[in-house]
């Protein structure tokens, strides 16, 4: 075995009841390099990483893994053992304790102890040090649930880094990050690489592979398709290996003509319900036409999510300003109200807000739509199943059976379930908060097509996205937010990423 191979995965096969997640996978990972892992939703990427991190311990899979020229056998306290071996992982789904502070989370399970008592001063001092080292702008004593998903993701990364890792596994770390935070992460990875840390990097944002990785392995249906040095790959070959066919465009064409203005937000000012002195929205203005897709861009914390959840009646306390629909002023107090007005929201956090994880896929898809399947009393379960089947097909949800628990799906497929659920509600206005997070390129295209179709049928869509390319590729107009304010609404024709970033960062108004 070559000396510079730190991790040698040989013929690994892993099955779940009814599913072969990995079949005979072999990958060699070189010391000190950044190795990309690429594949469609459900290809088996996360499963492989969970084997390396001890979630699926030795004996629950077939095949062998050599780590630093020894066979890696993570057995009894497998997860702890992996950490002690220097294998750290940032999971695809957040694993922080929401009610604890940033510091408590980072040191969870390894709190500095003095005479049997936790030394809180040291804990917070160390936390501050770690955060500063990686230039993460998060207060050490902030309670995690008060942070946005992006910040949580950074805390998650800091937590993994605090372990003195030899191998750092990142499973879609950027899916919830904005461009500037991604830049920051890339810098951190470069620094780690200089320090000799090996990294395995999973993402659906393919350009990141070209930006950061040294080589890329492509998985399809649980099998290794190819491993190539990144320099020998380009976007097209990557996509072809991944989905098994050619994909010319990233965004489907459309020929829609938006109609009259049906929805209008004027001078909206709102405060944080948990902290009434803090303004989260500070003068938002926009209108939405029938059959239009309006993109909302902006940095993390610029108030994008706060805006849509406030419109949906679930977040901010509105201080002033008006929301009108069909020339009538709306006074929406809850999600229930909003839905009665024909407004639906695909929420940002699939695990916390979108899904009932312990329930079957079917019930998750139908949950917001039971009214249409129910008479006065009885739910027509066959109609329910038929509709869910149709959605599953439209969005190519990769599931053995819709009766399986939704948490047995891969992350991207869970996201598709959330989208399926909300598409089924037949809204007049569909608000989507980062809808394609963690979804592979092929399925994204299908979702874009469905969105275009809806818009052509007169549905108005508001789409938040951290991916500027997506915003530009899909929207008719783009509203850029900065510090809780709407920095103007741009026609997508002729707009550039630079222009949007300038407004988002406050350089331009």
């Amino acid at each position: 075995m070559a000396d510079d191979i730190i991790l040698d995965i040989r013929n690994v096969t892993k099955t779940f009841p009814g599913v072969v997640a990995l079949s005979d996978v072999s990958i060699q990972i070189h010391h000190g390099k950044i190795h990309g892992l690429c594949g469609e939703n459900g290809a088996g990427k996360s499963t492989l990483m969970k084997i390396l991190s001890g979630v699926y311990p030795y004996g629950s899979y077939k095949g062998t893994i050599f780590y630093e020229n020894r066979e890696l056998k993570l057995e009894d306290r497998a997860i702890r053992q992996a950490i002690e071996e220097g294998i750290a992982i940032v999971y695809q789904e957040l694993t922080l304790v929401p009610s604890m502070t940033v510091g408590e989370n980072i040191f969870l399970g390894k709190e500095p102890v003095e005479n049997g008592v936790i030394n809180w001063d040291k804990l917070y001092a160390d936390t501050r040090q770690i955060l500063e080292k990686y230039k993460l702008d998060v207060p050490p004593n902030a309670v995690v649930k008060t942070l946005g998903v992006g910040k949580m993701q950074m805390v998650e990364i800091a937590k993994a880094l605090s372990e003195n890792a030899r191998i750092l596994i990142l499973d879609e770390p950027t899916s919830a990050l904005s461009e500037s935070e991604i830049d920051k992460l890339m810098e951190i990875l470069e620094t780690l690489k200089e320090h000799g840390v090996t990294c395995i990097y999973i993402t659906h944002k393919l350009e990141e592979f070209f930006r950061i990785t040294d080589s890329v392995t492509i998985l399809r249906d649980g099998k290794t398709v190819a491993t190539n040095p990144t320099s020998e790959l380009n976007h097209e070959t990557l996509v072809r290996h991944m989905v098994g066919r050619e994909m010319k465009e990233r965004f489907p064409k459309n020929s829609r003509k938006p109609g009259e203005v049906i929805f209008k937000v004027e001078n909206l000012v709102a405060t944080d319900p948990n902290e009434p002195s803090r303004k989260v929205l500070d003068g938002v203005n926009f209108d939405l036409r029938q059959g239009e897709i309006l993109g909302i861009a902006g940095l993390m914390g610029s108030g994008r999510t706060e805006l849509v959840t406030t419109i949906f009646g679930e977040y901010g306390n509105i201080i002033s300003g008006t929301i009108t629909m069909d020339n009538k002023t709306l006074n929406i107090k809850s999600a229930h109200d909003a839905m009665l007005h024909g407004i639906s929201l695909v929420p940002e956090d699939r695990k916390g807000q979108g899904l009932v994880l312990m329930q079957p896929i079917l019930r998750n898809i139908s949950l917001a739509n039971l009214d249409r399947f129910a008479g006065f009393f009885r739910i027509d379960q066959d109609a329910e199943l038929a509709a869910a089947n149709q959605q599953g097909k439209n969005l190519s949800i990769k599931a053995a059976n819709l009766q399986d628990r939704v948490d047995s799906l891969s992350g991207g497929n869970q996201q598709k379930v959330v989208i399926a659920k909300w598409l089924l509600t037949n809204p007049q206005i569909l608000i989507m908060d980062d809808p394609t997070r963690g979804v592979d390129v092929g399925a994204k295209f299908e979702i874009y097509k469905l969105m275009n179709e809806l818009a052509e049928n007169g549905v108005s869509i508001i789409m938040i996205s951290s991916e500027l390319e997506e915003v530009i590729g899909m929207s008719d107009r783009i509203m850029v937010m900065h510090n809780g304010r709407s920095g103007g609404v741009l026609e997508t024709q002729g707009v550039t990423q630079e222009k949007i970033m300038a407004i988002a960062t406050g350089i331009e108004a």
Partner: protein
Amino acid sequence: MNLSFELKKRFYDNIQTYTIILAMLAVWILFTILTNGFYLSPQNFSNLFRQMTVTSFLATGMVLVIVTGNIDLSVGKLAGFVSVVVAYFQANVWNTIFPGQPIVAAALSVGIGLLVGALFGVLQGYIISYMRVPAFIVTLGGMFVLRGGILIITQGKTIPANQPGFDQIAQGYLSPAVGWVAALLVVALLFLNMVRSRARKAQYGFEVSNLYMDILGTLFFSALVIVYVVVVNFYNGVQVPVLLLAVTAVIMAYVSNNTRFGRYAYAIGGNREAARLSGINIKRNIFLVFVLMGFLCGVAGIVLASYVGYGTVAAGEGYELDAIAACILGGTSTLGGQGTIFGAMIGGLIMASLTNGLQMLNVPAAYQYVVKGAVLILAVFADVYFKKNR
């Protein structure tokens, strides 16, 4: 789909149900051996099922309460309170207004019992969901209030409730012939349901499950019903309260799976935030769960009064614990979001089987509690263990 694959899949999907059924059979076999077979004699078998009824009515409602992530500690005392109220009206009120009309009196008693139960449910439910006081506290308080209520009505004395007519509710039996008719009706319904569901599936173009598998399943349940009727017909016949319980359980199982109300309960317990964002009116739903729970306490209280034949100070003491235990034994998750009525009924049967068997062996009451507590913990441990080692 091929038969053996489907069998396997059904087995894995329902492993929890099978574990608990096996546990129940184990309890039965053990007691049958210890009592030289008398345990499963038709008479004891018949009594065993009668004994499970009162707390099992409570358990049917408790499943939904726990599924939504709540708890109701007042159910035992509410059933007890209803039983003394009903006894009071039976003994002191109806015979002065409608002398010599036992059926009218019994019907009115049922009405009063259901009303009292439901009203108390409305009150508790309102405080819990609309005034946002935690269910644990509201129902703990409710328990004290009801204990006082029972003392006020009984004045510390025992009130008879064994009037003819009323006593039939918990002590009546169907004649063997009527029992047979009922059994055949159930079997016919089971088959009709199977055929209709297959037809509907085919109409929607779904993959229809294996015909033999469906027939086998339906035959199995039909056989259970028939064996049950054969055995109890050796004693007095099908017990009226068991029939009432069966009907209640079927309705509750249907409600929990096939209505919005039931589905929402599971979603609220599974992920409150996701449920809220799905436009579900959480307050109303939880309110209704407690109203339903109160109503079922009314049913349990009526059966209780008829069963013991009087209303007493101690009525319903500790029943909430049996009902909760039945749910937990039957696989209801204390964290909310998961649990079935069917499981809770088996859980209730296990609790009753233990009580009955231990009494038969003349085990002192003190040790009966010890055994029941240990079994509860053991059963949940076994469940955790099997799930982990799947």
